[in-house]
């Protein structure tokens, strides 16, 4: 009985997590291309609020950290700090080629590479810049893994 109840509560909670992912967006040193594509998600054409996605301003309210751009030496600590401010459970999405691997900035004297060098990344969405459809698809695939 108790086991069944625990399972039901778990199911309800993971349903809620799938249906209400609030995102926080952080650019750790990119060219601003992917950021504009992320803002596209909120426009009438793509409207991710119908999937329950809200763009939050404070990391303490967010569930998913969306990173764009390569990680520079200067932004590394801030990125880590912002990640640690997000309450558990949390997920990280790397959006754009630079965020996935460092992209064209790879090997630069001030570049550490992709986000994976600093944070555990849950899903990579490549593209330069990636299309809004690709970002929505990536987020949907991430949400499917939440059980």
């Amino acid at each position, binding site marked *: 009985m108790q086991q069944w109840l625990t399972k039901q509560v778990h199911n309800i909670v993971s*349903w*809620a997590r799938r249906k*209400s992912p609030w995102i926080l967006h952080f650019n750790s040193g990119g060219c601003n291309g992917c950021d504009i594509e992320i803002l596209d998600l909120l426009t009438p054409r793509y409207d991710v609020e*119908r999937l329950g996605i809200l763009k939050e301003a404070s990391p303490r*309210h967010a569930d998913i950290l969306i990173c764009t751009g390569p990680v520079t030496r200067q932004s590394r600590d801030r990125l880590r700090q912002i990640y640690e401010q997000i309450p558990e459970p949390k997920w990280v999405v790397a959006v754009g080629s630079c965020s996935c691997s460092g992209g064209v900035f790879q090997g630069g004297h001030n570049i550490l590479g992709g986000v994976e060098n600093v944070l555990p990344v849950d899903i990579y969405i490549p593209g330069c810049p990636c299309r809004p459809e690709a970002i929505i698809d990536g987020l949907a695939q991430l949400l499917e893994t939440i059980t």
Partner: protein
Amino acid sequence: MALINLLFFPGFTFLFMCALFFEWLDRRIIARFQERVGPPWFQPLADFIKLLAKEDIVPSGAHAKAAALLPMFSLTAVLTAGLYVPVGNVVTASFEGDLIVVLFLLSLPALGYFLAGWTSVGVYSLIGGHRSLLQYFSYEVPFLMAVASPAILSGSWRIASIAAYQSQTTWGALMQPLGFILAIIGLIGKLKRDPLDIPKAKSEVVAGSLTDFSGRKIALWHLSIYIQTVVGIFLLVNLFLGGSSHQSLFVALPIFGLKALGILILLSMISVLYARLRIDQLANLGWRVLAPLALIQLLVTIWSGG
């Protein structure tokens, strides 16, 4: 019977469902006005459950007890206010002067919001708290004067009697259109809704007082703000739209619901239409325009033989 009133109708469960429904409708209407689709009907419930199940972080330096107690404090205040506001023809608790008690209970969340910002360490929460206090001083005086005029007109400070008086004569919004407009503006300020969302402006102070809260604290804050919306709208329906005092509950409730939805749609349209004011603009507006207008409304009501 009292327990049923407290827990189910028109107590906690009813107000909770109304809050979720109003939040969904509000977001949906705003989305439709912006040519978006908007969230599905279960969205506020999913948000609430998800936030309840999230990790609860208290930043070092913040006052942990205050952070935990303040959302409950404001939730309690607005739920108690909900008990004194008649819904349809259901009057749960009522006495001469309950309008003053409701107004007091509805303004307590402003204090809680300010203290929440004051006791957390963040800079943004501090600015948000200060702004909310300044905003409170700007909208509350015109709001109180606007809400007092129907009470003076009907000669009673009991919400149920004011609504009954208006259902015998005519709507307060028709007799005192100026007071109705001022009350709507005051309600927007009270709820920190869009044109007056100065204390929690995303692009300026992140999330105001609530910046550093997470998990169930933010869930309770959201809930208390939306229950405040529900109770505030119900109050205005009783004071300015004549409430609904039909004999049968099944006629009175839908009429009351339609009037409440009317005010909600009005609030949503206003938040789509207007851009946010600066805090100094609001203080100017409140003291130079709204307060004198409210005073005129009050004097006209008194002279016209209330």
